[in-house]
Structures are given as C-alpha cells and as structure tokens.
C-alpha cells in the first residue's frame, strides 16, 4: 500500500539588517540554498509571531526580543523627524470636513453667487437629516 506523505514541516529563518531590525524571512522549501548564512532558524510559531509585526522585534546580543515601548516611541519620533514641514502640517490639520463646516457656519455669501447656492444646499442637507438631541457633530457632519 502506498502511503502518501504529509507535507513536512518547513524550516523558517529570519535575517536582520545592520540596525538589528528584521530584514526578511526565509523558508527552506522555497529559498533552498539561497538563505543567508547569517539568518537565524526559527520555529513556525515564531515565524508567525514575527511576521505579524516585524518592526516590533530586534536582535539584541544574539537574542531576538520584543522592542520596549521607549524603543518603539523613539523609532516613531525618528520617522516623524524625517518628514518635511508639509507632511507634519498635513498630519495635524483638522479634517477638511471640519474646516469646511466651520467656514459655512461663519460665511454668508451674497445671493446670486455660486458660494451662496452651495451654502443653501449645505443647509438643506442639514435640515433633511437633523441632528438628534444630545449628539455631537464630528468631521463636518
């Protein structure tokens, strides 16, 4: 009787870059002899854990460990520091919907103008869907 072999458990590896961050994962059944010599063998369970959040782990004195909250915060701060002023401003401006909402509440364009027509439509939508008592309008709603 021919016995069909179950697929053998693959052997996974993880490689790290010069900053000790995870640079990539390898598996013997696909990469064969192309796995870097410096890659570290890991279990399938470890591979699933690391692959789900690679940036949270690092190689520290030959041991793979989870980064501390301070280390993660420092990485995020460095990433933000690398951004230009435009990106930094864009990330902190109020939502565009909120900005437009505030303008339409304040502006009263003269009749006959396109801006007046648009504001009338904006008011009509608000009237068609009145805000329930006690609720808070957000995001330009």
């Amino acid at each position, binding site marked *: *009787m*021919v016995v069909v072999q179950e*697929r053998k458990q*693959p052997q996974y590896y993880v*490689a790290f870059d010069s900053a000790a961050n*995870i*640079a*990539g*994962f*390898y*598996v013997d*059944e*696909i*990469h064969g002899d*192309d796995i870097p010599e410096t890659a570290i063998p890991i279990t*399938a369970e470890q*591979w*699933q854990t690391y*692959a*789900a*959040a*690679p*940036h*949270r782990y690092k190689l520290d004195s030959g041991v793979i460990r989870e980064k501390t909250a301070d280390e993660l915060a420092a990485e*995020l701060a460095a*990433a*933000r520091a*690398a*951004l230009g002023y435009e*990106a*930094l401003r*864009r*990330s902190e401006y109020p*939502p565009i919907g909120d900005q437009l909402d505030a303008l339409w509440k304040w502006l009263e364009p003269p009749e006959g103008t396109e801006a007046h027509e648009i504001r009338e439509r904006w008011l009509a939508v608000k009237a068609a869907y009145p805000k329930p008592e006690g609720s808070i309008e957000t*995001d330009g709603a």
Partner: protein
Amino acid sequence: MATIQTLNPTDVIKETFGKINTSLTNLNNDKLEKSGDTMTGLLTTLGGIDLEVSSVPTGKVGRMHANGATNQIYYHDGTDWRNMWHHGNNPASVSANGYQKLASGMILQWGTTTEIAPNILAEIVYPIVFPNTCFALAATVESDWDDVAAAVVSYVSRDLSGVTHNASASKKIKWIAIGW
C-alpha cells in the same frame, strides 16, 4: 476468504493497462497485487516511473512520468508533457500573514500590519523574501466608513515595501503582493 493472486508485476501492467517501459533494470515490483480490476501495491523503478497506457479512453491520461529527483509529476496530454501541481511543489502557509508558491514559480503573499501612524513611511516586511522580485503590491487601509483613507505604496523590493496612509489616526494596512 478471498484469495489474492500475486502475479508478475510487469505482466500485470501489460495485461491490464497497456505497456510499461521495461528498459530500466533493477525492478522491484514484488509488492504489486491484483484483485479483480484493481491493482494495489508499490510500483518502483530506479530513475522514476513512466507509465504508458494504450487505447486511452476519452478523459483518461495516457502517459505519466514521475521524477523522484526533482519531485515533479507529469502527464502527457497527447501533445506535450504537463507538470502536475501538488503540495510538494506548491508550498504554502495559509495564515493571516501567509504565502502561496505556485508550481509556475509565482508567489502570492498577503497580510495585515499592526497599526501604523498616519503620514509616516512604514515598511511592510513580507512573510518570506521573494527569491527574485516582487512585481506589485496593493495596499488598503483598514478603516471605518466615516474615516475613508488611502494607502500609498512608495516602493517595492523583494523583501519589503514602503507604505503610507492618510487616515485621521493610526490604522492597520491590509496588503497583497505578487512576485516570484
């Protein structure tokens, strides 16, 4: 109790299915048995197995070849040899962050990141490195209907990709990549 007649395997194959390439030596087929129209046992040869059946009915395979050295199985469709796909040449990990290699060499990978802050360049490290290249990666933001946002793929390499999203808060990115 039924009696199982043990026959010379090569003769059995010739008699039942057509002809077998007998040019190979060191045949070791003494475990083959026939019962009615059913043959059971292990057909072994050195260098692989070629099975050829004459007078092939419609819908049946006429010629097959198994190469033990390369772990490939082929059938002949009447014109060309075709590679059969099986779990030995289609390795995969079916999980939340996983991959599927096809016998053609193409690899599909997919996953979901942890939450990424908006408007910063973050990296997606694939579940496995693409051996050659990643052709494309598509990413989308896991968000609510009232916080519609987009993800931008800034660069794609064979081991990771750079993505950014513009949601109002930290969000997960769902992605799929194709390469080989």
